[in-house]
């Protein structure tokens, strides 16, 4: 079986040890690491499609993301800065204050980190100030804010308003997540986008980062 097929299998089966083995082998045998990362990305997107189709469920998708993350953990440090410079975008992600819904946010965080983003997952019930302070501290590119309740969505607006007040709105792209979030809400509060699911969220994040 060639490496492409094998790596795809490792991701779709959520096989962490196989994913790590492939990553190590690729480095030892001087494979094109960028090409391998692209193959792995394709596999994780396929996992996302299977989730949409109702073939994969949350545990399968999380396992795939974990396998991807494991491989990326080995591959990313091996990229040589001159030759393979891959831009690593930094993401701050969390569920807004007052809201303890965790799943969707965690899934997006896993998928982002599986795709090579440097992810700072602040958890759930995160105050606006904590989002912003952390984003400033690590010099983040993206802030992803989840709200699962129509009552906590106002926190997303508060975050954008606070960024504006502090004159740093333009420093970050802000993505909104959560079942009740609509395109209209994104426009109303001046965010940079939203997506219907974790896979589209990653696509959108990459698009915004021009990756």
């Amino acid at each position, binding site marked *: 079986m060639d490496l492409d097929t094998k790596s795809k299998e490792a991701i779709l089966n959520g096989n962490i040890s196989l994913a790590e083995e492939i990553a190590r082998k690729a480095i030892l045998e001087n494979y094109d690491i960028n090409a391998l990362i692209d193959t792995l990305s394709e596999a994780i997107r396929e996992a996302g499609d299977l989730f949409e189709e*109702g*073939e994969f469920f949350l545990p399968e998708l999380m396992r795939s993301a974990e396998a991807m993350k494991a491989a990326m953990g080995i591959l990313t440090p091996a990229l040589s800065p001159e030759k393979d410079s891959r831009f690593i975008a930094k993401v701050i992600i969390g569920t807004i204050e007052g809201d303890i819904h965790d799943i969707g946010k965690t899934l997006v965080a896993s998928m982002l980190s599986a795709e090579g983003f440097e992810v700072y997952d602040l958890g759930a019930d995160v105050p606006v100030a904590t989002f912003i302070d952390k984003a400033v501290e690590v010099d983040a590119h993206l802030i992803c804010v989840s709200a699962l309740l129509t009552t906590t969505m106002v926190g997303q607006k508060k975050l954008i308003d606070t960024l504006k007040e502090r004159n740093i709105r333009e420093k970050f792209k802000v993505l909104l997540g959560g079942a009740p979030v609509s395109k209209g809400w994104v426009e109303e509060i001046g965010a940079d986008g939203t997506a219907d699911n974790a896979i589209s969220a990653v696509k959108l994040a990459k698009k915004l980062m021009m990756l």
Partner: protein
Amino acid sequence: MRNKKHILDLVKERVVILDGAMGSLLINQGLQIGIPPESWNVTNPEKVQKIHLNYYNAGSDVVLTNTFGGSRLKLSAHNHGERVEEYNIKAVEIAREICPEEGYVAGDVGPSGKFLPPVGKVTLDDFEETFLEQTRTLANAEVDFFFIETMVDLKEAESAVKAAKRTSNLPIFVSITYKKTKRGYFTIMGNSVDQCVNTLRKAGADVIGANCTLSSNEMIDLIPQIRQFTDLPIVAKPNAGKPQLIEGKTVYLTSSKDFAEDIFQMVEKEADIVGGCCGTNPQFIEKIVQRVKR
């Protein structure tokens, strides 16, 4: 002891009507975000009680105690983990005080908000511990039966049913949250209707069904699928559509009349116990009662 029918006997005789949403009505009354609704059993008991009373007056046979998030794991997320007993006992008192002679008080048990690996980090022992504590407290406070609901992970639901079973001999209603996929109804963890029904029956559930996520029209086809796997009574408690934020207000787009019509169709397909989940209110219950009794 009052001389009223055992709930499972009533279910054999006629359709039993539950209540509707609680949390959103508390928010309308001023519950702030970040505050667990269960804390209002202590700080604003009269407001919680008024909602129960409105449901009984609308025709609910049963109200669910304001203890959906009353487990230690869930309350801990709000740093109220030490108040499990206080909130649960008070919740039962509030409902019992105004429960009509023929009415019932069900001890509501919702999900812990935590997940087993690979999604989260808790263990089955954590589930068991948290549900044993909550169901024991509710049983001691003398609920008429348990209502375990909104479970998205069959393993967590099973753990809650087993805990309730160990706690007392009270009847156990258990309701799973399914989503509709191209391949049919599944939990987000991938549990099928067949797996859910069989596992929960073996664990000791007396009533099995579904609530939340699905709107009333989406839940109609689920009822015969549950029926296919069990003779146990079926409970159905759908949402009033999907929430929308319109001009700063949360709006559910299904009207109480359409909702009641969908519920009636579920009853025709052998749902035995019906009520409402997110987006419903006493008006929905009134409409259900009118439609079902017609």
